[in-house]
């Protein structure tokens, strides 16, 4: 039989219980201090500055970064002399003195925003004033160290750090996910971007063109290595200067590109075997009648031309005859397969809807489309399709994100590999024997095609003496790695060009300078071209 505990025993048990409880509290506190707190401290140890990750080029060079800045707010009721405070703060920060004074005298608002995103220098000037009632709110400012060089393709952010154009908008989610010390590596090569921008800007200045642009793209990965649009703007300034433009004409504008489109007409002819051989002779004459319309040449041409010279000398009449052999329906189907008749979707938010004949795709439309008139596409869309022609015939999609070395992003086969090889030979022939001679760079076998299109005016009629010139280049042509496209909108001839403003005088030299400067940087080998072309010709 168990005896009931005495009072003394109960007190011992209660005392022991209190001791156990006390030790448990001590233990819990120890665990809290040693484990929990340290974990919390580690979590807070990372930098919490950037709302958006850095944008870098493919080699890790900085293209855009959030820099720490401050927003200044004032509590006006703490100022002894509001007018003097407004004057001093305006002088220190560049804010509008009148706005500040109105805000300080408005008793409805206890806080007044003095200035946003002030630099450390301005912050030091404000601190030096010794004014009471100022609050400095940490913020960040997007800064672009290269300034105008890649302005349109990089884009800009709004005051709340949201991307509003270019890759800043297109890569918004990636930039947010990689914030706080991370970086998003773009496909852009800052060195190539500078060279392209420099050469295109120089050419625009030399030929007094309204606008100009250029793109360099990898034909196997679809990586856009460089893209420029002139006029440009300074992304570090909120205001545009006279003549500046934020428009990326290479992605968001559509143009009738003219004779560079003959590339697709010849590709279609090879695909459909409508050309007996490149030696087949076509009558050229003074004009080619289709119903009530007559196709003319831009320049004087011989009475007859072989097929290869039709492309080399850029004959509209010859190309028309070749295109009509395939017909309008097939031409439309082929251009659709190259993605030229639908908007191109890339990481850039800027895109453009192509313009083409629609349901009325008859003989005359087939003829004009064959030499790049009556159809308008964006330069980026054109270059993507042309890259498909020369890269072995497989579709690619432009990307602005760096791809791992050795990546091959080529997709579905839309053109036969042998057609692609024939076209590369033909494009080389254009450079060695045709309108692209100025692009024949020693040491690099460049292929290409010129285009000099007429420019439609506001009333739909073509403007007299106004041209839109372009040049598509591929190098090395027998083992393609890169394609280059240079566009000039309404260039003017100079004394050196004898007054001519055709692509051979304007766009070709600019593209040639670009290729000559970027090929060594991109590691393109200096290899001799094959002794014989694909068709056996030397």
């Amino acid at each position: 039989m168990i005896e009931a505990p005495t009072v003394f025993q109960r007190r011992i048990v209660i005392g022991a219980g209190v001791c156990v409880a006390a030790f448990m509290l001590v233990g819990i506190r120890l665990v809290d201090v040693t484990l929990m707190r340290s974990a919390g401290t580690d979590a807070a140890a990372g930098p919490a500055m950037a709302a958006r990750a850095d944008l870098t080029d493919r080699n890790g060079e900085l293209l855009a970064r959030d820099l720490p800045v401050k927003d200044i707010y004032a509590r006006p009721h703490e100022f002894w002399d509001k007018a003097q405070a407004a004057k001093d703060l305006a002088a220190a920060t560049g804010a509008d003195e009148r706005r500040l004074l109105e805000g300080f005298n408005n008793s409805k608002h206890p806080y007044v925003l003095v200035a946003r995103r002030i630099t450390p220098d301005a912050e030091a000037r404000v601190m030096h004033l010794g004014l009471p009632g100022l609050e400095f709110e940490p913020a960040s400012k997007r800064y672009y160290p290269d300034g105008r060089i890649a302005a349109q393709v990089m884009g800009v952010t709004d005051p709340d750090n949201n991307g509003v154009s270019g890759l800043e908008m297109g890569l918004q989610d990636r930039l947010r996910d990689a914030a706080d010390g991370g970086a998003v590596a773009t496909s852009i090569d800052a060195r190539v971007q500078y060279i392209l921008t420099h050469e295109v800007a120089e050419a625009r200045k030399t030929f007094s063109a309204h606008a100009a642009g250029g793109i360099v793209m990898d034909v196997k990965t679809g990586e856009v290595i460089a893209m420029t649009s002139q006029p440009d703007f300074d992304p570090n300034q909120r205001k545009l200067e006279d003549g500046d433009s934020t428009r990326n004409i290479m992605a968001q504008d559509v143009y009738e590109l003219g004779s560079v489109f003959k590339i697709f007409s010849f590709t279609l002819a090879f695909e459909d075997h409508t050309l007996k051989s490149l030696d087949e002779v076509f009558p050229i004459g003074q004009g080619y009648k289709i119903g009530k319309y007559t196709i003319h040449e831009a320049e004087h041409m011989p009475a007859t031309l072989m097929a290869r010279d039709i492309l080399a000398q850029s004959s509209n009449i010859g190309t028309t005859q070749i295109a009509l052999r395939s017909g309008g329906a097939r031409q439309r189907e082929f251009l659709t397969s190259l993605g030229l008749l639908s908007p191109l979707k890339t990481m850039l938010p800027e895109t453009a809807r192509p313009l083409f004949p629609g349901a009325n795709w008859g003989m005359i439309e087939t003829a004009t489309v064959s030499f790049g008139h009556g159809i308008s596409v964006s330069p980026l869309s054109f270059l993507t399709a042309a890259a498909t022609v020369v890269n072995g015939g497989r579709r690619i999609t432009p990307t602005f994100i760096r791809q791992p070395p050795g990546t091959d992003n080529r997709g579905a086969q839309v053109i036969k590999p042998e057609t692609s090889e024939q076209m590369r030979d033909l494009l080389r022939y254009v450079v060695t024997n045709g309108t692209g001679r100025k692009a024949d760079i020693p040491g690099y076998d460049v292929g290409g095609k010129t285009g000099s299109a007429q420019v439609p005016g506001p009333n739909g009629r073509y403007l007299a003496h106004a041209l839109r010139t372009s040049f598509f280049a591929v190098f090395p042509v027998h083992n393609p790695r890169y394609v280059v496209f240079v566009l000039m909108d309404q260039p003017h001839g100079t004394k050196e060009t004898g007054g001519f403003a055709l692509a051979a005088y304007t766009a070709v030299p600019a593209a040639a300078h670009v290729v000559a400067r970027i090929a060594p940087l991109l590691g393109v080998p200096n290899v001799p071209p094959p002794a014989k072309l694909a068709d056996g010709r030397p």
Partner: protein
Amino acid sequence: MVRALNLFCVALMGLTILGLYHVSEKARVAHMELNKTHRQIVAEKGAIAVLQTEWQHVANSDRVQQLAATHGMNDAASAQLSSFDQMPRRSDDTPLNGSPVHNVNAEIPATPQAQTGFQD
């Protein structure tokens, strides 16, 4: 015996409380130091970020090109450029003296290229 045990427990508890206070105080001070260091790290990282950006700005291609032009430097012709894997090695059989270094396919035209009639 029980009373002695109780006294021991109470004394142990008192000592533990004092020890815990000491540890807690040290942890608080260390935490303050940590926060201070953290703020310094953030400030230093911010300063480094600013310096990196400034370096990128002053060393960008546009500025280097302008400096090169100021000092009379020109771009090298593509035919003047080669890669390391095309350079002859000491162990190669081909003697260097009087022999071509490698099969150079590039030729710089001596005169400006002739204009053609093909201009489109």
